[in-house]
Structures are given as C-alpha cells and as structure tokens.
C-alpha cells in the first residue's frame, strides 16, 4: 500500500473523519503551491536545470540601425573563434521563418531589411554563453540605413499603420458635440512599460527522434511555441513537445515573445543535432522585446452643466512598433475600455495602429485596457476641473446605471453592476470626504508641499475578444494509490493558477490538495491550448479541470452504485472518504476497487465560454462574459520644489466574485496595483533620436521598490457578491483588473497639482508622471493660474 492510504482506519475512525471538511478546497486560504520551494530556491526554472551533455549556448547579433537594408553578414572571423559551433542566419531556416503570432511580420531572423534597433540578424552558437557572446562581437553586419519612423504622430500623419484603423461607435457623437453645453478637447501622452519579469526570456531544446524537438520554454503560450517551432524546423506539430513548469514572471511579456528564443534554440538544435539553450541577458531582453504600447490620445468631449457626458470623439494612436503582433486585439481592448465605468452616450472611438521602427509592442497585463481607461479618467478630471467640482462627483454622475444608461458603445449591456455600491463603501471606509477637507487645510498651510487624493473605478471585461480563444482543456489521471495527477492548459507564472485549479479538483473529489500533483504544462498532455492571458487562466482551465473531475466522479459513482449496491443519493464524497449509505471507505479504497472493476481512471476535460459573440465589422456584440470591478482611493504628496512625491495611503476594494482563494487574490490585487502605479509614475522608457532604447537596464529603468508602496495600504475584497454568471464556483478573474487601480495614484498626483490652481484647471501632466513631469506640471499650473 502506498503512503497516501496510510494505516487502515476503522469504520469508527472514518466516521469521525467525515465529520470534518477538507482543509484545502475552494475558497480556502492556502498558500501558493510552490511557496515552500520558492523560499528555499528549490523551485526549478529553466536556467536551473542541469546542462545536457554537449549543450550549446546561443547569443544574438542585433541590428544597431532602426531601419535599413541588410547588405551583408560576415561571420568568418566569428566562425574561427574556438568554441563557436556555427553562426545561423535567416537562409539557414528550413521551414517558415515568420513567427508572427496571428499575422505575419515577425521574422525570426532578419532577411533583407532590419526594422528596429535590437532586431536579431544572426545567432552565434557556441560551447558556452561567454564564447557565443565574444563571437557575436566578431560578426560584421553591413546595413544601408533607410528613413526610420520613430514618432507615433509622424506615422499617423503618413498613414503608416501595421493594421487598418478601426472604429467603434454609438449614436452620433459629432451632432452631440454640436449641441453640448460645453465642449473640451485635449491630448494626452501615455508611456509604455517594460515587463521586467525577473526571469528573462529563456528556452532550452533537445532534439528527439524523427526530427522532433523537446522544448523547455518559459512561455505563457506553449501551444503557440509548439506550432512555431514545428513551422520553423519544418516538422509536423506532433513531433514537437513543449514543457513549461513555471515562469519567473510573465505579465504578457511571454505570451508571443517567448517564441523567438524558443524557435532560435530549436533551430540551432535542429541544425547541430545538439541540445541548445538561449537565455537573454537583461539588457538584451529589454532591447529585443516589445513592451506595453505607448499611446497618444486625442479627445473632444461634450457635457452638460452638471458634467454629464453626452458626446465623445476619441482617437487612440498606438505605437505598435514594427509589426502587428497582437496589436489588433490590444488596440481593440483599449477601445473597449475607453468607457471604463461610464456611460458615453454618443461616442466615436477610433484606434490607429501606428507602425514605428521600434521593437514590436505586445501584450502586457491589461492588454490595451489600461490605456483606454487612462484616457477616459483624464477626461473625467478635465470636466471636473472645468466645472470646479470634485472629480469623484463627476465620476459618480457618469457611472453606468442598472436599468438604463447601461449599454456600452459596442452594444454590450453592463450586467451585475457594482459601481455604485462599491464606490459608496470605499468612499466611506477611506473617509474620502473628511480627508478631502484635511488635504485642503494642509495645502493652505504648507509653504510648498501639496497633497492630492483621487478615487477611481475599474470595470474590466473578461474574455478573449478573439472569441475562439475562450476554450480550456485539462487531463486528470488517478493512480491506484489514490493520488491524482492533474494537468491543464494554463501556465503558472506566479499568479497561483496551479493552486486554484488544484483546489477546484480537490473540492470536486473532496480530497486534500496534497493528494493532487500538477506537473509541467505540456503540449502532449493537453493539446491546442490558449495562452494564459486575458485573466482567463482559472476561468477556462479551472472549468475544464472541473469537467474532467466530474467525468471521473460520475464514473466512480456509477461504479459504486453497482459495486456497493447503494443508490446515487447515498454516495457522498467527504474529506478523503466516501460515505456509502451506512459505511465509509477511503478515497483510495474506492479507486482501487474501481481499477479492479476495469474502470478508466483517466479523463480529459474541456470548457468553452458560453454566451459571448462579437462582430468586429459592425463593432457590435457581447465580447465579454462578465465584468470585474475595482476601486482605489489614493492620497499623495508632492514637493513643488522638485516634483518628487510619495503615495501616503491607498485603499482598495476589489471584486473577485466568490474568491477561490483570498490569499492568492489579495496578492494579485496588491501586485497589480503597484505595477500599475509604477507604469504611471517612475517607469519611463526613453529612446534616443536614432531609435535606440536608453533605459535598457534596471539602472536606468525604475520599477517600484519597497519604499514606493503606499505608507498605509489597505486592501479588501468585495464580500458576498458571487459572480452572477456560471463561472467556476462563481469566482471572477483577477489577473489584470487590479493593474488599473494604479491609475488612482496618477489622478491623485494631478489632484495635488490642480490644488495650486484652486482646482479650476486641468494639469498638463502626461504619463508616466516622473518627478520631472510633476515639476513641469506644477510650473504649467502656476502659469495657467497667473492668467486667471
């Protein structure tokens, strides 16, 4: 007998057992499944695996020109360096070298042109990474420069797009603006963001039989890596297996971008017949890979004398970099979220996917949604300053309502609306009104410090807007000792997906989570998976695992009915045991008996999200299964001498439906908030005039550190609000929505600046609001006020 079954218990003892519940089911506050291995360094990441014998290492040769014709690659000197195995260029690719995720445009290796500084031109394969790096320096590349387009507005003016512009509209915005009591217009720059996952892009590959490849990749999308590797080395998909245990952070940066190192390593393995590894040093990672899209936002908004919005014309200019990548869906999501929590009435929202000679910008937590939300939050502030009222009152006035004013500009009805009740709760629990008064007093008394406060909402649509991606798969094997092996199509990047899916399966079988083992996500266990993205990981894979578990449970119940001669209603799974009318057996006992009775103990599970549809041509439909809501109230202080600032307090109330695991969910909310705050404050990407990224390492690019978090940080989940939709245990997705809570910090900084103009002028403050940006916003406010 195995360890799991333990010493045989008597009937009395087992009766005692089933009086209690399992400790690790759904809703229980249990730690991350890998926590104990994280803290000891025993959790294995790809770079921690022992090197294979004869393993080779890759180092890239990158373009130093933003746009040019690739004339010549001279690798002779490099090839002579001892330890260099070979140098690979585009013409060495046996299959299709375009690794564009959905649309073509991302050459694995540059062919005849280069389109950004950091584009891979050649790969040096050597016995060590150090030799490969020395070798890469010896490769001589000749490029004839062509005109580079580096500014989004220049690209827009030239109609230089990676994809055609697209519009979503409701009513007649132009007519509404004409008849509006007040009309304001403005422009806002929103910066991009480096993912800064702590583990840089990495992949290791091992050639297998019949030209196949085993790929260990740090990717959010194993199935896509499988497809692209197969395509590059020209074999069928069934010859390629991708294995992914965990990532050291992803945040969207490993959705499409993990494919390049994986395909390069696989290509090198294919050409040399040897195991290969490609790990990007931090600076190369930051130069080679795309980031969150910088946006330029231009708006014209009409509203009545109360501040009720009646018409909006909004242009979103996205800097997509050199290729389409996921920019189609990303800019769509920005447009879908340009309403955030507000009923727009008549609105025309157009997204422009501008092509620039920079790394191709890509998925990043929120996937365009944050940029759309910042646009409308900025507009709310603008209206409030114009009318000299508290921005919170303008926000509340414009919220979607439950019975009317509840239709989005893309035709989806906002259901399960928690905006009013959550705002009321947070406004009260954060003492917003009292603190607003205290801040006024402080601002009147301090010679040069100013405080600001802002309460901003989040309404985020959950589902992939490419509807077909809303599917998940799982595989459960139960072994004869009662232990359960679980696989699903999602990937673990720290968000606690494996923990939640294991809790779901534990709940279904009523067994302890220790009984369940989740091994690496693997394309030969669960095929044709969607990326772990769009916050959907638990929604789709949790449901798929639940379905697999239910299939098995049904089989076990049918077996028990016949074997133990009990009725279905007399069978109960309780705390690692099965109650069968008047006797109790252990889960293991049931499994063993089922095995002897020739019952299959393995099942797949599948799930597709119901209800959703979207017709992009008419920009109309119900693209989201449901919305997740959140609220944050942040208070800041700025030093008008220098523009430096500090977040003093943030109160957060966030909606996760019925939480599968409050500890994991709180972690997502806090981490998302701080990442969002970083995006809007200190994380500044700067390029020089040639298109070279200057902030390409953590010396120059500053993500929040421990001192930057709010001095007083209070985070709460909404209680007793199940997801009205039939999601897994009525939970809600939590990956992306909290990111946008960080917008409250930026609005609070603007509030502090606006105090210098008696709250009657909109601060001229772009994002990220670095101390320098705040400083000049202060100067600008003083100028605006001087003109009063």
């Amino acid at each position, binding site marked *: 007998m195995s360890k799991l079954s333990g010493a045989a218990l008597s009937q009395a003892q087992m009766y005692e057992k089933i009086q209690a519940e399992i400790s690790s089911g759904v809703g229980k506050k249990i730690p991350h499944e890998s926590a104990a291995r994280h803290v000891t360094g025993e959790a294995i990441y790809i770079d921690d695996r022992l090197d294979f014998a004869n393993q080779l290492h890759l180092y890239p040769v990158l373009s130093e020109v933003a746009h040019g014709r690739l004339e010549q690659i001279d690798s002779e000197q490099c090839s002579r360096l001892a330890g260099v195995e070979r140098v690979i260029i585009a013409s060495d690719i046996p299959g299709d070298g375009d690794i564009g995720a959905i649309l073509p445009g991302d050459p694995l290796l540059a062919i005849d042109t280069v389109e950004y500084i950091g584009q891979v031109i050649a790969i040096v394969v050597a016995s060590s990474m150090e030799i490969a790096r020395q070798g890469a320096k010896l490769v001589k590349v000749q490029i004839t420069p062509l005109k580079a387009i580096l500014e989004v507005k220049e690209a827009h003016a030239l109609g230089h797009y990676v994809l055609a512009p697209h519009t979503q509209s409701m009513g007649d915005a132009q007519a509404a603006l004409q008849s509006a009591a007040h009309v304001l217009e403005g422009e806002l720059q929103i910066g991009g963001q480096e993912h800064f996952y702590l583990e840089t892009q990495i992949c290791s590959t091992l050639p297998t039989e019949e030209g196949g490849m085993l790929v260990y990749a740090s990717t959010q999308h194993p199935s896509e890596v499988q497809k692209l590797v197969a395509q590059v080395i020209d074999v069928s998909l069934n010859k390629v297996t991708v294995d992914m245990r965990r990532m050291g952070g992803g945040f969207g940066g490993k959705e499409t971008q993990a494919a390049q190192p994986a395909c390069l390593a696989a290509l090198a393995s294919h050409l040399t017949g040897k195991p290969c590894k490609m790990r990007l040093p931090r600076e190369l990672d930051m130069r080679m890979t795309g980031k969150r899209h910088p946006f330029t936002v231009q708006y014209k908004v009409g509203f009545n004398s109360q501040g009720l919005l009646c018409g909006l014309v909004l242009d979103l200019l996205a800097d997509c970099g050199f290729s389409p990548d996921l920019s189609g869906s990303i800019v769509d999501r920005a447009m879908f979220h340009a309403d955030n929590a507000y009923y727009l009435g008549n609105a025309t929202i157009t997204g422009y996917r501008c092509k620039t000679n920079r790394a191709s910008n890509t998925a990043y937590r929120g996937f365009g949604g944050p940029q759309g939300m910042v646009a409308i939050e900025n507009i709310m502030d603008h209206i409030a300053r114009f009318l000299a009222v508290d921005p919170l009152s303008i926000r509340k006035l414009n919220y979607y309502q439950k019975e009317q004013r509840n239709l989005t500009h893309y035709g989806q009805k906002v259901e399960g609306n928690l905006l009013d009740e959550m705002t009321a709760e947070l406004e009260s629990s954060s003492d917003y009104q009292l603190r607003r008064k205290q801040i006024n007093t402080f601002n009147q008394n301090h010679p040069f410090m100013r405080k600001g406060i802002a309460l901003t909402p989040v309404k985020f649509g959950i589902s992939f807007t490419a509807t077909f991606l809303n599917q998940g798969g799982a595989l459960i094997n139960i072994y004869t000792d009662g232990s359960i092996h679980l696989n699903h199509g999602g990937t673990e990047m720290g968000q606690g997906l494996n923990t939640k899916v294991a809790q779901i399966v534990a709940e279904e079988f009523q067994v302890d989570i220790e009984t369940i083992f989740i091994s690496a996500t693997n394309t030969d266990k669960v095929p044709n998976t969607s990326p772990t993205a769009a916050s959907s990981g638990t929604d789709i894979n949790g449901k798929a695992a639940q379905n697999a578990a239910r299939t098995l449970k049904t089989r076990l119940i049918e077996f028990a009915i016949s074997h133990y001669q009990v009725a279905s209603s007399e069978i109960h799974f309780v705390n690692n045991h099965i109650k069968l009318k008047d006797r109790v057996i252990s889960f293991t006992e049931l499994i063993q008996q089922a095995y002897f009775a020739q019952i299959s103990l393995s099942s797949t599970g599948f799930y597709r999200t119901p209800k959703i549809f979207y017709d992009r041509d008419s920009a109309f439909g119900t693209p989201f299964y449901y919305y997740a809501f959140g609220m944050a109230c942040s208070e800041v202080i700025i030093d008008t001498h220098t523009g430096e600032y500090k977040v003093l307090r943030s109160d957060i109330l966030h909606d996760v439906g019925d939480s599968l695991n409050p500890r994991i969910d709180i972690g997502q909310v806090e981490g998302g908030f701080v990442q969002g705050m970083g995006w809007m404050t200190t994380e500044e990407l700067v390029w020089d005039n040639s298109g070279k990224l200057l902030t390409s390492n953590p*010396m120059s690019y500053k993500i929040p550190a421990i001192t930057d978090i709010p*001095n007083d940080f209070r985070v709460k989940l909404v209680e007793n609000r199940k997801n009205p939709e039939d999601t897994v245990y009525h939970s809600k997705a939590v990956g992306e929505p909290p990111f946008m809570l960080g917008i409250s910090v930026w609005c609070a900084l603007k509030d502090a600046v606006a105090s210098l103009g008696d709250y009657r002028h909109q601060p001229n403050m772009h994002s990220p609001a670095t101390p320098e940006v705040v400083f000049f916003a202060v100067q600008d406010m003083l100028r605006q006020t001087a003109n009063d």
Partner: protein
Amino acid sequence: MIEFLLNNEIVCLTDINPNTTVLQYLRDQQQRCGTKEGCASGDCGACTVVTVELDAQHTLQYKNINACITLISALHGKQLISIEDLKVEQQLHSTQQAMVDTDGSQCGFCTPGFVMSLFALQKHQSGYDKHAVQQALAGNLCRCTGYRAIDSAAKQALTSPPLDHFDPLADDTRDTLLQLAKNSSACPSIEHQGKICHLPSNIQTLTELLRIHPESTLLAGGTDLAIEVTQHGREFSQLISMLGVSELQQVTITDQQLEIGAAVSLNACQDILRGPFVDFANLLERFASLHVRHTATLAGNIANASPIGDTPPALIALNASLVLRSADQQRTELIEDFFVDYRKTTLQQGEFIEKIIIPIPQQDFHFKVYKVSKRLDDDISAICAAHYLCLDKDNRVSEIRMAYGGMAAIAKRASHTEAALLGELWNQATVDKALLHLSTDFQPLSDFRASDQYRLRCAQNLLHKFFLETQATIDVTTGAIKMRISDYV
C-alpha cells in the same frame, strides 16, 4: 590561494579566473542554482547572498550582498551563505517560513534574494522597524507581489525569532574565520590562464605590487568594476584588491577631522558620518542599496569620478581632501581639485587613494544635501546638491560651499553663486538674487534621467529649500513642517 567558508566547509581556490563573480561560482561551479540572475548589474537583488565577517570586536557581521557583481576574491577570509544553507532537513528557516505564511512569493524568482536579505537583517535587527526593513530590502526588486506581503514577512521574521542553526555555531564560525585570517599569507592570489588577482594585506605589499605592475587595475568593493565584466564582457588580466589592506581599513576620528581609509565600506561610513554630518549619513541611505553599500567604498565612489556619483558633492562641500599614495610618494589633494574632466582625475598610474580626510568645522554651520531621482531608493541622481554654510554674528555669509552632481561633466562647485552669497546677509532676497547665477555656473545636459531645464530649475529650488531649512522660524526639528519628500516615507 584564497580561503573562505562555503556555509561550514572551508574552500580553497587557487586556479580560478579572478573575473568570476560569486554568482557564476555558485551556479556554474557549485550547482547551487537557488541564487538567481535577474540583471547581473546589482540592481535587482535576485542574486542576494550573505557574507559573514568579523568586526573589530570579533562579532559576526551578516551582510546581504549582490553575488552578481561581487568578484570571487572578495570572499577571502569570509563565510558565504546562500539560500541552500537556510533550510535544515525539512525545517524551513524562520525567514523562509515567514515568506510562506504571508504570501511573500508569487513567481518565486526574486524570492531567494528576499529571504537572504531578511536573513541578514534578522541577524542584527531585533524587532520590526519599517525603516530598517526598507533599507535592507531596497535592493531587492519584486515585480509580482507589490511588497506589502514581504513587509509582513519581515514583521513576522523580526518579531522574536527563534534561534537558528547558525547561532549555536557562532563560536566555531568565529574561530574558523580567525584561523583563516591567521593562515592567510601576506599577499594571497588567484590566477587562471594569465589572469591574476593579488590580495595584499598591508600597504607596503600593495605599493610594492604597484611598483612592479603599475598597469594593474585596482579593485575595492568592485561594484562598478564587476559591471564592466558582466555587462561589457571585459576581462581584467591584472587585478589588485585593496580590500584586505589593513591600513586602508582604518578610521581615525579626532575633534578636527575624520580620516576614512580607502577600503572602508559606504555602510560603515554611514555610522561614522552620522555624528557630525547627519545629512551625509541620510544621503548614504539613498545611495544605491544596502547590498551595494555593504561592498562599495567611499574611495571607490570618488575614484570612479562619475559626474553623477553622490558622495563627491557632499565631500567637496565639506572641503574634504584625499591622501594619494604611490610606491614613491604620498600627496594630499582637495577633492574638488581631484576631478579634471568627465571620468578623469589627477590620479597617476601606480597611485591609489589611501584615505579621505573630512575636516570637522570648528564653528556653527549648516550642511544639507539633497538628492533628486526618479525613484526614492536605489536610483542614480538626476541632481545631487550639497550646501555648506557658515554665518557670522550679523547673519552674513562667512563661508559657503555649494557642490553639485549631475550638473556638469564632473561634480563641481557653483563658484559664481557662492560669490554672490559670500559676505551678504543670509535672507530671501540674497538667495533669490544668487540663485540666478546657477545658470552661469552650470549648463547641464539632458539625458534619460532628466532634462537640462529640470536640473537647473531644481538646483535653484534646492538652494531655496536650503535657505528655508536654515531658518529658525520654520521649525524643522520638531517635525511641525516637513521639508522633504523623504520625510514622508
């Protein structure tokens, strides 16, 4: 041969490339892969390990450092503890358990580094202190958690921690470290394929080495030099480490001056400076991270001659000087004269900084330093401004030195502005007039850290702030009015 303790095992290394970092050594040669590479530039802390050494009282000092920018020679005579050493059998260390209990890890990649920083902190901090935690962890970046959970872990780990398995071994460890020191030759070295590092233990050996190999590269904390290796692929063939030179570890404090040896770490300087120059000590709290300050030296920050180094403005404003030494001579030079041009100093080949001398003012003075950067902690200054002021009995400026970093190719004084202040009444009008001269003194550059305009306007405002802080009418000390953002942390 260098000798150190890897946890409790004595390791002797002779044939090893001195350009090897501690991180490479652990991961590639010891297969201790719990320590991660996040940046290889000392900015993220994923590679944090702890070194243990003896202070003057032979007490064990636990220090969190960046393994990625520490060259292997720095381990000589110390104990190295990595994440693998904390768990005993199935028992997590209390710092590890705290991180599990409070959900301090998500993706887990930064986690071993945080644990090691907490471990070092726990060894010298009893009870939770938010400021101490921020100081200890400012050099550890986490992209997932948002840090609140990690702060809670720190709280748990620092609140009456149990004895761990290192505590009962403390006497043994001390004896072993003393024995290692005793065994060490006058000048140990490591060498691999013609690349050599000498570790002289006294100044005579050091000068002798420099006479024979004047082209040698001098190595102190190495936190900048190692970046040349990890980020730019440089390999140094002839290194001389100054860390073990006993004379250079000396600190002499008199009523007249502070003398700080070239091998004294910035962290040690913090304690020395806090008495006479509290603002200097406070500046050091925002100088890189504790990881770096444990290793880096004050002399290194000067010799580096970066226009954005944080200590030169403060030292120039305090009229500090250097004692420069070579095989044949010793000379003294004011630090403000030491910097010639961008990354250029008067240091001759074969010459090294022996010590830094900071005079202690004998009259009442004001000394304030301001650092402005994008991020509060562990960031490089956009501008660093140091002001030293003495007033006579009539409230006239009798002495003024204002020095700036980030405003020119070198850290330098604002001579025109100083001239406009000297002898004048110290009041708002004087200051308002004087600060216009800053644009004569400096024509700063625009770069990714800040624009020229911002730097100049900030410099002017900081002079204004300095004036306010010197005014008795605004009582800074009682905390009635806080003058700096760092006061609100």
